[in-house]
């Protein structure tokens, strides 16, 4: 099936009126909104991430170049490889290099939270909502299988996928835990078990994944956004309890909804001793917005990063990074 045919097929889904209205508020220029509307009906590009625990990017690149048209679009991140051609169904998943765990198929915008976290060898890191493990395996690779990485998720079926991802990637520095995120943070905080860095890639309404999951067009509803926003605020409050003073937390979602993004960072800035940090990522980022509907946010939310599909030919994402300035006492309630 050609790219054009795939585009046409995806057009059977359209934006719900309220979703369209919200996106038009976020993208007030008609040209910008039109670009967004057009691109969300096309399939995303084929990106993979070299698994540096098993193979080096130049060697993998050389191997893949014999089969596909490949590019390394970001010189500072040679592990990010673009397969710049149409592929048949299952072609990426059935390649020998994938079977061997030499690469992981991952959309480029989803690689940004781990890059923002900037994991280093020998650090103590928590990935709070880890399944399916794409970011966990990316973090473990940057840690060179040293330090300690705790990968938590809640549901057993998601844990199985997470475990399979880490197995294939040759990750050996990880403890997989199955708890709800709030329980795990509460219990660890009671024993003063704290982390240098935390990734909170929160469950979200998925507005950024329209290209790969067009069913999100149908599933989206405003109630879901509000409910998720409340849960995300609770998650970040509890996550901060297990972060060391001076430690870094990256909060990310794959949605554009401000309630789930700047709204959550604003909540953290207003209630906890944290500082929002500027980000330098290899994709085009727009600054976080400082007001939405009737809400005015802390001006520092401008330091967060909105990744729109039309800016990068990617999926949509939101990435933010904060530093904890003072230890948080265990008894603080969300």
């Amino acid at each position, binding site marked *: 099936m050609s790219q054009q045919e795939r585009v046409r097929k995806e057009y059977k889904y359209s934006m719900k009126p309220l979703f369209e209205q919200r996106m038009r508020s976020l993208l007030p220029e008609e040209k910008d909104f039109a670009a967004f509307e057009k691109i969300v009906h096309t399939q995303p590009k084929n990106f993979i991430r070299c698994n540096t625990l098993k193979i080096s990017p130049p060697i993998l690149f050389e191997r893949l170049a014999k089969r596909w048209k490949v590019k390394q679009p970001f010189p500072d991140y040679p592990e990010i490889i673009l397969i710049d051609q149409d592929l048949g169904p299952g072609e990426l998943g*059935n390649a020998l290099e994938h*079977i061997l765990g030499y690469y992981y198929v991952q959309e480029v915008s989803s690689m940004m939270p781990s890059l923002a976290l900037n994991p280093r060898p*020998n650090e103590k890191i928590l990935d709070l909502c880890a399944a399916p493990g794409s970011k966990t395996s990316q973090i473990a690779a940057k840690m060179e299988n040293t*330090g300690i990485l705790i990968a938590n998720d809640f549901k057993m079926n998601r844990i199985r996928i997470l475990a399979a991802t880490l197995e294939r990637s*040759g990750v*050996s*520095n*990880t403890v997989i835990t199955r708890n709800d995120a709030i329980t795990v943070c509460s219990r660890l905080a*009671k024993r003063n078990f704290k982390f240098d860095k935390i990734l909170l890639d929160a469950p979200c309404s998925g507005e950024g994944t329209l290209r790969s999951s067009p069913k999100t067009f149908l599933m989206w509803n405003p109630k879901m956004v509000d409910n998720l926003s409340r849960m995300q605020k609770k998650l970040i409050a509890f996550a901060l309890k297990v972060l060391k003073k001076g430690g870094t937390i990256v909060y990310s979602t794959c949605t554009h909804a401000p309630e789930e993004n700047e709204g959550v960072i604003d909540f953290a800035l207003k209630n906890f001793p944290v500082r929002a940090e500027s980000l330098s990522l290899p994709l085009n980022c727009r600054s976080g917005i400082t007001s939405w509907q009737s809400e005015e946010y802390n001006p520092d939310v401008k330091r967060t990063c909105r990744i729109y599909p039309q800016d990068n030919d990617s999926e949509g994402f939101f990435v933010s990074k904060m530093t904890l300035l003072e230890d948080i006492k265990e008894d603080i309630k969300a």
Partner: protein
Amino acid sequence: MNAHFLSSKEKKELFTQLNEQFGINEIASLLLETGKEKIRAFSGALSKEELLDLAQLVNIEIIGLYIVRKEHDIRLSFDATQLLNKQLKKNIVDITDEQLALWIRGHDLETAGPRGTVIIRHGSDFFGCGKSTGERIINHVPKERRIRK
């Protein structure tokens, strides 16, 4: 957490066997045995005591990476053959492109080789272990790591 941390004696026995079969001398990780005689390697910076302490706080499902299965002899996991490839010296069977195409789809190989568990290599890539009868190698590639066509 249902895991048993290998004692010094158990580790010594394991490494004697790993050395005899494949030439492996060391795995710089904490080793623990979980269900079905599977041994996992944990390279993280937590001691056995710290892991046990952690298990009191949270529900631990999995620690580290599955590397070895103990049967009457030792079988390395698919990923262990890649991660330990620099140490592998014995019982390696090199296969051709045609044999690889069969092996990675889950078929046994009709080929002569040393009896017992062997490691399958194609070029510089390692593709797990198989059980050799001397004339045939029985495929042990996990189903989820096979090509499905």
